[in-house]
């Protein structure tokens, strides 16, 4: 009734090929952005912003990165957490070497280092495919995680071996460090995520994205059609690692605020992000957000929501039950809709179009 494109005529090719061709979609997007930029910072309390929204944004960005690699290009990666770690350590090194530089610029620049490492570990992908490639990325995961501990230069030789996030001001407002307010950090995260999502959307809808999808569907056929596999696959690795690196820098600098980073970027995080991508929907940007929301908010909600509802649970039991529930839900969602939450969203929209008279 409300969601219907009747009467919206396209008179140009550009309008027809737009990412959001239906006006209601554009209004919806504007509402979501308005909620994210205005409603949440004003009405959300600090707890909600720091332990729900910021993790959600960080994981969304990492999931978008992995989705570019796994969902769009069809290369399975189990090393996302390590690439996130590269971003975090690069950002730390840069901000200690150049304390005067705007930290947001550095967070974005740290993605470049991660992209370079990603290309390096992406090289085997030209010869190895499928699950075999997963092991190549596991090599990246374990090797990089080992270097985070064993190369003291990375954490400036400090005794604890942890990243200490220094205070950095942007236009006089503390963005990182103990004095940064949750709202500021939230706005920085949100800004980065929105800009990079817009960038990713343009990338995957354009020529590059189409070549990635051709490689995913069948790389030999893509090669015969004139797509350079070397370029396409390595570019996918570079872009994916860039996103992961930025997400990692955001995770340490804007969310954790320092700490034992090597532990944070463990194999478990890699798996978690892979779950997000698959639960959300392979090859779908909005799916990355759905997946991140599902898997980052669910444990928090279980931890704090159930006791609030009067279900008594000790800390340890709650954790175990969360594990079981997540496992069960992963299987449930895969059975109900193997193409992820994004497909459910699409089906929902399709249903809405004909509602209330579907025949």
């Amino acid at each position, binding site marked *: 009734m409300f969601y219907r494109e009747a009467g919206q005529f396209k008179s140009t090719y550009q309008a027809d090929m737009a990412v959001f061709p239906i006006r209601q979609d554009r209004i919806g997007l504007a509402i979501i952005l308005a909620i994210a930029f205005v409603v949440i910072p004003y009405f959300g309390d600090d707890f909600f912003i720091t332990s729900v929204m910021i993790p959600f944004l960080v994981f969304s960005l990492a999931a978008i990165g992995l989705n570019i690699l796994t969902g769009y290009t069809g290369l399975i990666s189990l090393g996302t957490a390590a690439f996130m770690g590269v971003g975090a350590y690069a950002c730390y090194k840069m901000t200690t070497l150049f304390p005067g530089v705007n930290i947001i610029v550095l967070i974005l620049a740290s993605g470049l280092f991660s992209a370079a490492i990603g290309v390096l570990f992406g090289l085997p992908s030209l010869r190895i495919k499928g699950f075999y490639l997963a*092991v190549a990325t596991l090599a990246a995961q374990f090797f990089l995680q080992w270097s985070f501990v064993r190369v003291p230069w990375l954490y400036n030789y400090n005794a604890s071996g942890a990243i200490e996030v220094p205070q950095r001001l942007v236009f006089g407002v503390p963005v990182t460090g103990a004095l940064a307010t949750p709202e500021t950090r939230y706005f920085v995260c949100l800004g980065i995520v929105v800009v990079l999502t817009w960038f990713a959307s343009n990338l995957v809808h354009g020529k590059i994205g189409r070549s990635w999808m051709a490689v995913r569907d*069948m790389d030999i056929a893509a090669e015969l059609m004139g797509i350079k596999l070397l370029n396409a696959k390595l570019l996918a690795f570079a872009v994916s690692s860039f996103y992961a690196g930025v997400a990692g820098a955001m995770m340490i600098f804007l969310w954790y605020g320092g700490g034992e980073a090597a532990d944070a970027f463990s194999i478990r995080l890699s798996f978690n992000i892979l779950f997000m991508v698959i639960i959300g929907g392979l090859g779908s940007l909005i799916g990355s957000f759905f997946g991140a929301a599902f898997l980052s908010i669910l444990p928090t909600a279980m931890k704090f929501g159930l006791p609030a509802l009067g279900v008594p649970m000790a800390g340890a039991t709650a954790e175990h039950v969360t594990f079981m529930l997540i496992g069960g839900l*992963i299987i449930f969602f895969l059975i109900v809709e193997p193409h992820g939450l994004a497909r459910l969203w699409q089906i929902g929209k399709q249903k809405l179009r004909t509602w209330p008279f579907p025949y």
Partner: protein
Amino acid sequence: MSDVAARPAPNLLANGWVKAGLILAAIVVAAVVGSRLDSSGTLYKIFIDPFDQMAAAPDLLVQTIWEGLVTGVLYALIALGFVLIFKASGVFNFAQGIMVVFSALTLVGLYEMGVPAFLAVILTLGVMFLLAVTIERVVLRPLVNQPDIILFMATFGITYFLIGLGESVFGGNPKQMIAEQLYLPKGAIDLKILGGLVTLQKIDIAAAIIASVMIAVLALFFQYTRIGRALRAVADSHKAALSVGISLNQIWVIVWFTAGIVALITGIMWGARSDVSFALEIVALKALPVLILGGFTSIPGAIIGGLIIGIGEKMGEFYWGPLIGGGIESWLAYFIALGFLLFRPQGLFGDKIIERI
């Protein structure tokens, strides 16, 4: 005649063996160059010093190889579970590692409840059978014909579920494996060879023997029984197997149960060496390079891959690890596998990957 002339010269570099030979030659050349450097040079430390040490203390070398061998056997056992399931159902079963932990925990948990040791083993087998049936009913059957990655993810779901279930039923604390009650030997044998002492843990010897026996039994089972024949048929082609009246669902239950048995034995062995805890999960990830090395579909490949990874890892850690700060065991296995993969993308014994448009 003309087409013979037009045929391009064979590209020698395309042959993996030639490439391997060239690289080997390069290493030898580098080693010779290195030996000409003084004995504190980096090349010397990488290429000469470790071999020097090996020659100087052969007993240490034997000890290292033995330890690698034993670790390799256990990797191979985990990989074996993967291969069984991959062959029969095409599922890349990530949950194999957690099945090892889960079965070992169930065994110890049952024993702690007062069940006699051998009855506990039988009961655990019952639990593994139940698990196999449940997985087949709840997870595999609805997901038939989905892409590989979806099934792979589903086994992740199983992993999470089993971690949660195991921890909430048996608690997260490490437990002692009931090795004595199962008449597994304890202690060590000291062998005097090559002018030194080599210590062999009896449990390791037992592990190697039991693993070999189990592999032999599995081979016989696959080769000579009716069910084994059906399993091989399913591995060859699902459709052909279905068309001659083999029930896929039944085969899947059997194969997951077999993997469960393998998991239990692995769990007992591994638990007897250290203790039973969820840390084993990370160890199970080591089975991945083993698999890759051997090829996903080959049982001998899993075993040989396990041994190569186990020995390579221990030798690398012992002789080359100190050069870059130690602890390289955590990633060396993956790099060894990666090195092999660059020459044989399907693993040492895997089916050749043929791609068609």
